[in-house]
């Protein structure tokens, strides 16, 4: 193999698994260390700059970082509770008013309209407002937040937290136009904005057209619409027997909300097997904890009504069959249909984009699924000054993805408004510096904690089920937060190898607790992988290969289960190994001029 080019920031970026997996590339180990140092405000600001909504995401994020966490690849280990540590930073940040940007005094003369006030639009608003753009934010709701307000129930995300983080952005001098439904994009275009950003989400809940749908309509609700109606207090109760259809996070929010509005016998009924449900495992656990059974492998067939009123639903039992390519199909078991009683049914089987307000003759291209054609890097549409982001751009995903897309769209808008090519993306900001302080002394806690993952405490079930606004999760207290933070392996403290200093004494290879390092003769990647001290079978993890050493061998390090404990560097007599802290920040709007 060719020597690994560690000068390419993407190499070390990929070693920081959590940060790499995060759509917004938040420097996770960096803020976890700050939490351990009791620097909560600083930890919050690292998050705020990167993901805009630390308090919100610390409670509701889909956490793509956690399945990626290196700790999860160790034997009998679970990932670091990254998401809930973020909440520790948010809960304990104290007064950060002085750290937040203020309304710009000098504007740059450019006007940008943002349609929809959800996470992606708010991200664009923040990134551009600080640069002096005049931001106009439009939303049909009475407050900002979008789906974070209408779809995420208060028992998961208290209104104060949401309001607080939305205001932090609006206070930078954003002109808000709430209670304003934009019914025509053409009208917005006519206002002569320099750029328009569409962040209207995926507002349409999918319906299920089954027999009995019309007769039972009064007691059959679309999940996200029903959640919004609860959030805005138009709906305050539900029947005692509730069926929730669907297996995603919306279904989990629907069933748990039902339990708080009077639902006593609430069940989730889903087509797929339990393990393949789209909902996050922890959300399923929380639902089950609230006495909500999840009945899998049941396909809804019909709504059953009596005297024009819904009394329940019929289901067909199926089982999953997989073809040679692993593609799943659900085949009926042949058993008789089963009937479940219900006073109300909530349909949470997915949501869709909907753009009835965008005229089709404006030059914006739509594909065969009626989705706007948007560049996946620049988020620019076929009309150069109109950009899309969040669920409105590439379909329904999650808050953190919307934020990441918002940042990219903001960069594009800034480039566009400065007459630069939107395809010329600014490089990330990176830094790499030694953490060596002395013998056996590093600027980070190199000792690897043996603790198991800590469980986030929850409020008493009897209490939370009585009040839909009472937050269920209590968050880590500070001592537990510290211990959980210490579980982080500091993957951003990189093992940097300098061939010219190596005397090939094997000390690093002998000491490495997880046998990551091998000195051997060079070869092609597959061959090398098979010849390592422990063969490197996880192909998603890179090999770091040195140049040829004096004996003709190369140093090969398998990044897979490196603990970043620094023992290789401690045992290296010549400092050929060094532990160097790597910082990678994706660029934000404004970094290109």
């Amino acid at each position, binding site marked *: 193999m060719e020597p690994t080019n560690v000068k390419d920031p993407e190499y070390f970026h990929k070693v920081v698994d959590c940060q790499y997996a995060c759509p917004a590339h938040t420097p996770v180990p960096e803020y976890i260390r700050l939490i351990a140092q009791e620097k909560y405000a600083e930890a919050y600001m690292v998050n705020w700059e990167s993901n805009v909504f630390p308090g919100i995401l610390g409670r509701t994020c889909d956490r793509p970082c956690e399945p990626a966490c290196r700790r999860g690849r160790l034997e009998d280990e679970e990932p670091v509770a990254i998401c809930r540590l973020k909440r520790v930073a948010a809960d304990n940040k104290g007064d950060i008013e002085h750290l937040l940007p203020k309304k710009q005094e000098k504007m740059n003369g450019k006007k940008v309209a943002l349609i929809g006030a959800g996470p992606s639009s708010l991200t664009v608003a923040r990134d551009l407002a600080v640069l002096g753009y005049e931001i106009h934010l439009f939303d049909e709701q009475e407050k900002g937040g979008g789906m974070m307000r209408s779809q995420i129930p208060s028992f998961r995300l208290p209104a104060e937290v949401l309001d607080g983080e939305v205001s932090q952005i609006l206070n930078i001098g954003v002109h808000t136009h709430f209670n304003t439904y934009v019914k025509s994009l053409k009208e917005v275009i006519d206002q002569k904005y320099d750029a328009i950003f569409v962040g209207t989400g995926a507002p349409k809940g999918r319906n299920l057209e089954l027999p009995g749908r019309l007769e039972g309509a009064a007691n059959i609700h679309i999940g996200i619409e029903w959640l919004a109606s609860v959030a805005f207090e138009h709906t305050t109760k539900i029947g005692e027997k509730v069926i929730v259809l669907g297996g995603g996070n919306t279904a989990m929010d629907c069933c748990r909300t039902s339990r708080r509005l009077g639902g006593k016998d609430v069940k989730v009924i889903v087509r797929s097997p339990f393990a393949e449900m789209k909902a996050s495992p922890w959300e399923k656990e929380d639902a089950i904890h609230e006495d909500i059974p999840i009945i899998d492998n049941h396909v809804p067939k019909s709504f059953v009504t009596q005297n024009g009123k819904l009394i329940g639903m019929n289901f067909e039992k199926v089982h999953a069959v997989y073809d040679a390519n692993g593609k799943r199909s659900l085949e009926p078991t042949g058993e008789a249909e089963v009937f479940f009683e219900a006073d109300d049914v909530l349909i949470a089987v997915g949501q869709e984009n909907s753009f009835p307000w965008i005229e089709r003759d404006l030059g914006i291209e739509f594909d065969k699924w009626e989705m706007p054609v948007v560049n996946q890097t620049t988020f620019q549409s076929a009309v150069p000054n109109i950009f899309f982001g969040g669920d409105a751009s590439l379909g329904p995903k999650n808050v953190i993805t919307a934020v990441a897309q918002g940042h990219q769209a903001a960069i594009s808008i800034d480039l566009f408004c400065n007459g630069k090519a939107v395809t010329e993306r600014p490089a990330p900001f990176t830094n790499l510096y030694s953490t060596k302080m002395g013998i056996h*002394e590093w600027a980070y806690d190199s000792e690897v904690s043996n603790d198991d993952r800590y469980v986030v405490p929850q409020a008493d079930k009897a209490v939370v089920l009585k009040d839909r606004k009472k937050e269920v999760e209590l968050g880590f207290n500070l001592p537990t937060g510290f211990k959980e933070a210490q579980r982080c392996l500091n993957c951003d403290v990189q093992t940097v190898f300098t061939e010219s200093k190596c005397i090939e004494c*094997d000390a690093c290879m*002998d*000491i490495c607790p997880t*046998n990551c390092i091998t000195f051997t003769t060079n070869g092609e990647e597959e061959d090398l992988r098979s010849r390592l001290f422990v063969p490197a079978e996880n192909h998603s993890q890179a090999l770091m290969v040195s140049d040829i050493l004096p004996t003709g061998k190369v140093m090969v390090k398998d990044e897979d289960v490196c*603990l970043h404990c620094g023992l290789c560097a401690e*045992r*290296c*007599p010549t400092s050929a190994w060094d532990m160097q802290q790597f910082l990678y920040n994706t660029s934000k709007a404004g970094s290109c001029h």
Partner: protein
Amino acid sequence: MTYIKSKFAHPNLPKNKLGYTRKEYEGSLTTLCAGCGHDSIGAAIVEACWEMSIEPHKVAKLSGIGCSSKTPAYFLNNSHGFNSVHGRMPSVATGANLANKDLIYLGVSGDGDSASIGMGQFVHVIRRNLNMTYIVMNNGCYGLTKGQDSATADAGSKSKAGSVNMFEGIDLCGLAIELGATFVAQSFSGDKHQLVPLIQAAISHPGFALINVLSPCVTFNNNVGSTKSYDYVREHVEATGTLDYVPPMTEITTTYTDDETKMVEMHDGSWLRLHKLSQTWNPDDKISAINALQHSHVKNEILTGLLYMNNESKELHSLLNTTDVPLNKLNESVLCPGVEILEKINSEFR
């Protein structure tokens, strides 16, 4: 201050026939200097024992005093160990071996412990052909007392402070062959590829097996002008040949027709695959081994690999014709058979 080795291991660590990973053969975290050759030798011992699927409790590690003699703390933590008096490890090993011949005896010593204070013990344990593996971690200096020249430092070798050693160094391998050692090898801590099979062959060998391992002292003897530095050894090393250890019960399918390669069956059923690099050297010919050593001295080369092996070796127990059952397993009635038997024995001497 950290310096703590994590309990976490690679989840795919291979297991040996006993179901153990290398972790079960490791020791405490070393306190030797970073980059010390001794640690590499320790790692080679771990590798050798793991690969041979030796039950850790069947090994006794014995050592004297010195940096080298500290190392048994850093490998085979599940084995027996005895850290003895300076230079007196061979006596303790002899006593232990006579009491329980069922254990594998692994002696670890240094150039000071063997070639100076312990020289008297060293030569006699060789003469007696005690069944043990005796590894000398040889760095040519007294590292524990700040690097004075030891008795194995070569004449002309320069110390870190710049003084040149005027005395001839003792060649432990030449001496051992001279004294009738039945297995003599020399190796380099920086070459595990060679060292691991040598340790395995030494453990399999019935009788005294010496491996003199050049093990650079990074702190006091790794300077330019030293003949025991990493660089010097790498530049001057020459191998007699290569040796592969083939564990017992392995089916030998290849036959070698060339003169250079041969399979040697060991007492425990394992095999050594010897591949000669030198035409004039023969591992079972003492004279050729001494010649090869002397020639390499003249050429300023460091000869490594297996130097000499007598596969007909008779170790101490068979020389003394002791009981098959180890002495420590015999009960009192067998060990003290009574007055009548004693009388009978005594009468034989009258």
